[in-house]
């Protein structure tokens, strides 16, 4: 049995323990590699390609040039302490990664078998139990590795761990048929309600995803399963952080999936991933964006609460700009004054 399950491999980017942002309680989140979308703001750009990638982490590099000297393809070069990778020449053989003494060369994407991955996540069982947490599979897009995701969540369920699927919804419908029976919770993204903007931001329109969302709703209803549904909306400055977008998503939820949704989370953008783009030789349009203020998040949450959904399902989370208590008090006072003036 074990070997059979372990024969199903998934390409995993990262395992994050004590995650407090991916569902209820304390969770271990497994990020798989490869995504069906390519959001312009993506916090984990390394999770988008389905192929393994090599990256150089400048801060870890000790400048020993072991990688440059050891690359059989001569794909690496050193320009005044900056290691450059000719990605066209690189065959992902991994020699530079294996030999880098400082772990500055990193191969993104590790194959994990179902059992070994379940063993790994089970280490935090005590914390799952004390917090009502569990395992979240995220990405990338886990529904793009449906066989692995289904097998992994099934194994977690068998071990009595709470399971959550974090999905953008862009995949074949059948993927949900395979995975849903083993997920206690689905975290389903609705990023942008306007299909044109959605395509501009993510590379795909949202029609298929909204359709799949209804399929998820129907499947849960039809099978009488206890799977819960949370909607998540990333709040991105100069993109999704618009009143009409939030109102539109809210209206969609209210009209189509109102009874099925337990929670709608607005997730604040963060800019902590700037370095990730650089390491992958990518440009990032959002690099210069500052963190959102609490005020903005509160405002959008308020828009959400008035969009037709049951207001109690609306939450917001994520890091906001650091402001001192004084500033906060000041802002609160200003907000209060605006309110007074508005009257």
């Amino acid at each position: 049995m074990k070997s059979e399950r372990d024969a199903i491999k998934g390409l995993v980017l990262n395992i994050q323990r004590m995650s407090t942002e991916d569902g209820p309680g304390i969770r271990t989140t497994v990020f798989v590699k490869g995504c069906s979308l390519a959001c312009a703001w993506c916090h984990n750009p390394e999770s988008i390609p389905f192929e393994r990638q090599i990256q150089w982490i400048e801060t870890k590099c000790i400048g020993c040039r072991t990688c440059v000297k050891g690359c059989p393809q001569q794909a690496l070069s050193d320009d005044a302490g900056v290691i450059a990778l000719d990605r066209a020449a690189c065959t992902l053989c991994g020699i530079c990664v294996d030999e880098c003494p400082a772990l500055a060369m990193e191969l993104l994407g590790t194959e994990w078998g179902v059992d070994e991955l379940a063993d790994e996540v089970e280490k935090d069982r005590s914390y799952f139990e004390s917090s009502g947490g569990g395992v979240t599979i995220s990405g990338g897009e886990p529904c793009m590795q449906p066989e692995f995701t289904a097998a992994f969540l099934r194994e977690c369920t068998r071990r009595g761990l709470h399971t959550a699927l974090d999905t953008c919804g862009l995949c074949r419908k059948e993927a949900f048929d395979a995975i849903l029976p083993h997920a206690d919770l689905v975290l389903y993204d609705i990023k942008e309600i306007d299909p044109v903007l959605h395509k501009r931001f993510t590379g795909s329109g949202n029609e298929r995803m909204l359709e799949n969302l209804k399929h998820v709703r129907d499947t849960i209803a039809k099978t009488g399963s206890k799977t819960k549904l949370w909607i998540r909306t990333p709040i991105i400055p100069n993109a999704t952080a618009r009143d009409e977008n939030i109102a539109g998503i809210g209206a969609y939820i209210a009209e189509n999936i109102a009874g099925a949704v337990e929670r709608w989370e607005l997730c604040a953008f963060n800019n902590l991933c700037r370095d990730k783009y650089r390491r992958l030789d990518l440009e990032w349009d959002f690099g210069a964006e500052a963190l959102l203020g609490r005020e903005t998040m509160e405002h959008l949450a308020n828009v959400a609460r008035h969009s037709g959904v049951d207001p109690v399902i609306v939450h917001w989370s994520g890091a906001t700009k650091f402001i001192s208590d004084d500033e906060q008090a000041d802002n609160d006072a200003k907000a209060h004054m605006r309110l007074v003036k508005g009257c």
Partner: protein
Amino acid sequence: MCAASTAPAFKIKEPKNLSPRIQWLRDYYFVGARRAWNNEYSAWTTGTDWDVQFDEISYYIVPEMYAFNQTFRSSFRQSARVVTLHPDFWSWSLPERKAWFTKEVMVNCVPQELLPGDLIAGARFNLQASRCWSEKEAKARDALIYGTKGARAVMKWFHDHGYGNSGATSGHLVPGHERALTIGWKGIHADLEQKYKALSESDKKGRKGAQLRAMMTAATMPRDLAAKYAALCRKLSAKEKNAGRKSELEQMAKNLDRVPWEPAETLWEAVQALWINHMLIMSDENYPGPGVSFGRFDQYLLPYWKKSMADGMDRDFAKEILKCFWIHSNTAYDAMVQVGNQGITSGFGQLITLSGLGANGADMTNELTYAVLEVIDEMTPILEPKPNVRMHRNTPDELLDRLIDMVSSSQGAPFLLNFDERSMAGMMREAKRANVAHLINENNVHEYAPVGCLENTMVGNDRSGTVDNNLNLLKAVELALTGGKDLLEFVDPITGKRDPIRQDGPKTGDATKFSTWDEFWNAYVIHTKNIIRRCVEVYEASERIRAEFCPTPYLSCLVGGCAEKALDITQGGAELSFVTIEGVTFGTTVDSLLAIKYLVFDKKECTMAELIQALRDNWEGHDILQAKAKNRAPKYGRDDNEADAMALAVMDLWAEETWQYKTKSTNRQFRPGMLSWNYWVGDGYVMAASPDGRPKGQFLSNAICPSNGADINGPTANANSVGKVLGGTADGGAADWEGYLSNLPNGASHTITFNPSILRDPEHRKKFKAFLRGYAKNGGTALQINMIDADMLRDAQQHPQNYRHLLVRVTGYNAYFTAIGRELQDEIIARESHNRY
């Protein structure tokens, strides 16, 4: 740089809800060296040429003091005032002389004073009193201290060569406060008298009789001192114009007429008695508050609290009494107030214990627990007394919510969390290993309490020498690499004198010829046993001196076993009398072993000779190998089962070996623990480079914590590793206590630093609470939570004047951030902050 004009960029916790009285007392305390009143050491002599006040042995575990031993001895002797001795003084035994002298000084020489508004009497107590030695005794004792074989040279050699430090130290126990409150000193005295009468005539003339007579004298010291303070209160009351204060002073006088001699009846009496009983221990030991701990404060004071509440005492006034007690506890730091609040004065550890399990798994949280937490919250930031909250599986949500509120409004937890299940498993292990199941068993193990920082002991009958031996486990790795010699020549930093490298340990062979990991491990085993034996021997040097020359008859009255055996606590009188070896550098040791195995044997990245050369060169010119050691070799603290198996093997080995020893002079059993105080910082400059990639001069790992930066898998993984190396869990009879195992009866210091955002909203606070509950299941014996923003600490380094009250916790003792050394500051900043967005 015009630093003074810069406003603090971050707020630090401020005290709140303080009455004008407490506000004044607190502010006055923080005036520090410029105060008109203080509790500085006063020195007192018998007037002989050979007299000694300062007992350096107590400071053998404080390497910063080594250079000053002789200076302190001389300067206290010079400043000491002569006490007119009783005509028979020199005809008495040493303990009788000591008991009489301390009493005479405290009652008749040191002035009795009361600060404005104070509700608790008992002000000056920091003494450097004569050791009361006869010339013959002084010479005999000095012969054991001085010389190349003397205790001083032996312990200094031990430290200079990187083994750690060792010395018989004061405090570090929970005295029998509950008994003293319940029966009063009158009861204690009567008991002593009865035991004395029961002695045979020859015993009366001998050592036993002398000890009991000394203890009887000591037992009257609190009575006579209280009478003096009662008189002072009456004198002040007569002059007092304010009617409210006048009646307070009259009540204080009435309290002092009764306690601590008579049993306490009200809260005010009990707190008054407790304070006098406690402060006189510090006088008796000539040492301010080193882990002289209060035990389960909210349990034994509860009846008095309840009675006073029922009698109509205003709850706020009751808290006011406690707050005065808090202020008093901090005055211990005045001992060397002119020197400033640096170094050793940052960590005295008069610990109070709150909550925890009772009999039959009951939770003992009560109304006083919450009242004390309010006091702490309102007084914070303040150093003493240090609270330790005992948590367990059934800790009520209400208490945890309260604690998390306090954590989130403070810079760190203003308390340490002790975890009952793991701690009690350790105490039960101790009972089994030392055959003391009649004293520690499942019916009473819940009565344990931590002392000092987090060291678990039983209460009222236990001295376990919890900080007396601090052994660098890493030294065994060094000796295994060299076949029993120091890797580097020791050069005295002050004199420049060189110690030639010698064969100090067993000859375990040339490590460069080892062909298997097992060969190296075997050498490591031999050297671990060797360094533990050495530590025990070094300890014996000071233990026997203390036993023979340094009685503390007053403290002995408060510790069960001493009266029964007519044996001073310094001679092993306590019913439970252990000596703890605190294993230091655990993480660095494990990581070094893992690195050797990985680099030399498993991956053959280098030869043993190359690795040893790299260490001799302090890794200079070996960057690539160092990077591999740091980055590629496995590490403890990641919940990596293979690495943690090595950690468990290291733990099992040294813990088991520690149980093999007893002191020769006092027959005290050694037991293992893990506390590193600040040695992991200072000894980082003493110990050679280590195979884990650490150069000489960089810090070692702290207590049971993973090496700095090693715990890349977050706090749950970190905690799981800690739980595993303590033994983890077991079913049924295999467990030490209800499914839990523990290798370390003393407990182990574990600190995790979190970013404050983990507590940013109620949902996250709930998750944090769940983390603590998970820790109770999987983690260690104690956890210190630091909740500090690295940016705030950097700002505090730049602008210390804005952060004078910023408390951080290090190894379970807290310290003002701006008062600790730059290296330690940097270390705290460098620590992994676990919360990532």
